[in-house]
């Protein structure tokens, strides 16, 4: 009786190009919109996970290995697998308006801010589950 598909929930995408990738729900459109008359949400996920960083890596190597490639996508709820994990990353600017993904350059700009937030979260070492690849 508790709604669990809320912003901040970590989910795994089940379909599409990014199937098997972990993402975090940024914004939920419970009743859908006119273009998408079904429940869906905006997720920000990891297209490329950061590589494993070991202690003997130099600073330059660590920086290179900690890079992530991010994606933003509007996904139907049926194509997500929710998990018990949450990721409380401040992605409010990403979910700025309903047209955050309208034009290509807005999408690219939003992706860049999402990438920064996710990278700094990875560097703190928290939410380690989110940044490890799901093996299947």
């Amino acid at each position, binding site marked *: 009786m508790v709604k669990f598909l809320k912003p901040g929930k970590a989910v795994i995408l089940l379909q599409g190009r990014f199937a098997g990738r972990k993402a975090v729900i940024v914004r939920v459109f419970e009743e859908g919109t006119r273009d998408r008359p079904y*429940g869906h949400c905006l997720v920000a996920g990891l297209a490329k996970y950061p590589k494993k960083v070991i202690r003997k890596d130099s600073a330059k190597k660590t920086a290179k290995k900690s890079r992530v490639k991010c994606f933003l996508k509007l996904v139907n709820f049926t194509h997500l697998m929710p998990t018990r994990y949450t990721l409380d990353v401040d992605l409010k600017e990403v979910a700025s308006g309903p047209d955050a993904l309208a034009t290509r350059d807005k999408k690219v700009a939003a992706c860049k801010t999402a990438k920064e937030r996710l990278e700094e979260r990875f560097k703190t070492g928290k939410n380690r589950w989110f940044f490890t690849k799901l093996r299947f």
Partner: protein
Amino acid sequence: MAPTKKTKKSTDNINNKLQLVMKSGKYTLGYKTVLKTLRNSKGKLIILANNCPPLRKSEIEYYAMLGKISVHHFHGNNVDLGTACGKYYRVCCLSIIDPGDSDIINTTPAQ
């Protein structure tokens, strides 16, 4: 009778309660709609047949754990569950949205 059944009386109780829900309450039958009701937290009780595929069973149980919705494992397979619902088809999982006059929600919290 399989030894896992508690007593004959309590299984009959479930069937009777289900009958009452079918008559007076709201419910959905089938995996896809059960997941839908779990996602939007409309479901109050989920009932799974005992021959539900284990992956599907764990998936529904996981969703129910996230949404704090109770799951009941029916003592019977999907054919029996369909009959208990008064339908002429097999039902593997069903979700009770509104129990109507029945008290199935209060008296079956067993996981």
